[in-house]
């Protein structure tokens, strides 16, 4: 079947691409909790639900694939793959095009293993400029969207949460247009730290990395005070 053939093709492409960017493996491939992977998602004025998304703590990979991203105004992509298993996650996207941003890539992959992650780009260009295949973690590029605002493109974005889980996102776009923030995540893989003390292979970055400017999910300003409610005229039969 065509779909399966395409999926296999993408899986092979991912397997071929990934060795170029070898992860320093964890000391032990023991359980690292659930892995999760998302090929593409977007939030803001144009929301694209995670497509496909998979979360699993099984010992064998759980895979999901989508041949083509459903039409939307901001991002085109084919052969979207996500796979996850205990302590591991992989995501890949082929034929990526974000035309409004001038971003193209023939293949985008992200992989996370026991708390270590890496991402990789094949034939990626931003407004005609070639992007590094293996950018350093949290490499940020600012793009001027003529007349409407600016966008930050973060390559190989690494964010570690307080539990030690790492999320590596191959390309994260954050754009502010007319006061609204649009985010697009391409190839994102999350995995737990696993049970290895010392973490020799940990990437030199984290959630507080100052070189990570476009992080909409980690606001640095403290939240404002929640509003005091104004009673709404109405009634709800409650349990007296």
């Amino acid at each position: 079947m065509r779909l399966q053939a395409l999926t296999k093709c993408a899986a092979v492409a991912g397997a071929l691409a990934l060795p170029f960017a070898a992860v320093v493996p964890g000391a032990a491939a023991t359980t690292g909790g659930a892995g999760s992977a998302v090929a593409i998602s977007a939030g803001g004025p144009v929301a694209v639900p995670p497509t496909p998304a998979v979360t699993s703590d099984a010992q064998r990979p759980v895979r999901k694939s989508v041949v083509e991203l459903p039409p939307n105004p901001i991002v085109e992509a084919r052969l979207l793959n996500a796979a996850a298993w205990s302590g591991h996650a992989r995501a890949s996207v082929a034929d990526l095009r974000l035309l409004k941003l001038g971003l193209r890539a023939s293949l985008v992959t992200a992989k996370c293993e026991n708390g270590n992650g890496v991402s990789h780009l094949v034939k990626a260009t931003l407004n005609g400029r070639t992007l590094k295949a293996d950018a350093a973690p949290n490499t940020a590029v600012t793009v001027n969207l003529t007349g409407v605002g600016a966008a930050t493109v973060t390559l190989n974005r690494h964010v570690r949460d307080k539990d030690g889980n790492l999320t590596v996102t191959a390309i994260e776009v954050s754009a502010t247009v007319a006061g609204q923030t649009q985010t697009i995540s391409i190839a994102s893989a999350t995995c737990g730290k696993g049970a290895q003390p010392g973490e020799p292979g940990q990437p030199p970055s984290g959630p507080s990395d100052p070189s990570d400017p476009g992080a909409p999910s980690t606001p640095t300003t403290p939240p404002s005070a929640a509003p005091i409610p104004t009673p709404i005229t109405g009634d709800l039969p409650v349990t007296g």
Partner: protein
Amino acid sequence: MSDETTARGVPGPPVAVPVVLAVAAVLVSGCGGGGGTAGNGSVSPAAGGALPQATTYTTLKDLPADPSPSAALDGTVVHPAETAPVSAQPGAPAVAELPAAQLKGDTWVPVVESRPGWKRVLLPSRPNGVTGWIPDSGLKTARSGQAIKVDVGDRKLTLLNAGRPAGTWPVAVGAPKTPTPVGRTFLLASLAPAKPTFSPLILPVGAHSATLDTFGGGPGTVAFHGWPSTSVFGKAVTHGCVRVPADALKRLAKVPLGTPVVITA
């Protein structure tokens, strides 16, 4: 792609029909922003609007329970500017939607856990303590410095401000056959009945009676409210609600929506 009206859905099944029509009219006429122009070409995460809405009227399946129902929360509360997709795990497919409004007021829910790009929040639906993950884009984040504790055994309510007691009152709690459910929930809405019968203000929370599937035509939602007779305070006599003295109600009226409510046995 489905059209805007069906994609957004209409919250709250038991609302009277004319109100539903009015709400639908508002949604169609302007709530979407830009009056339906192509400028805000939102792709609804729930194409077709088939997902259940997280409201006090619904029961949500396939979503995780509150991991620590008796622990204190840090007071972070979020308001979705638009209907937010709700997933069982960060990045997992949405299985429900959290509308921007609850009981005609703004939705504010407390955050119990955060991951990059995602917030896990308490939801106002059954079962009690149901949580879900929502994308943190499009969320307004704020902080409530207050918390409400209800000790069912002692029949007392304590209002905390910055972690310190700001007032303690004797309250009426659920009778033995219709107990006030314990666990972590939150202030869901502030309602002023047009013709008050027993209280000028009803403050529903996210929890529901475990023994009453419906009550008085409602979904069995637990609430804080006043009571005409002061003799009930300190007694276990209600159908699950927490009846509070007038000065407690006055103080609770100023507590932000989404503020954590911890009910202990």
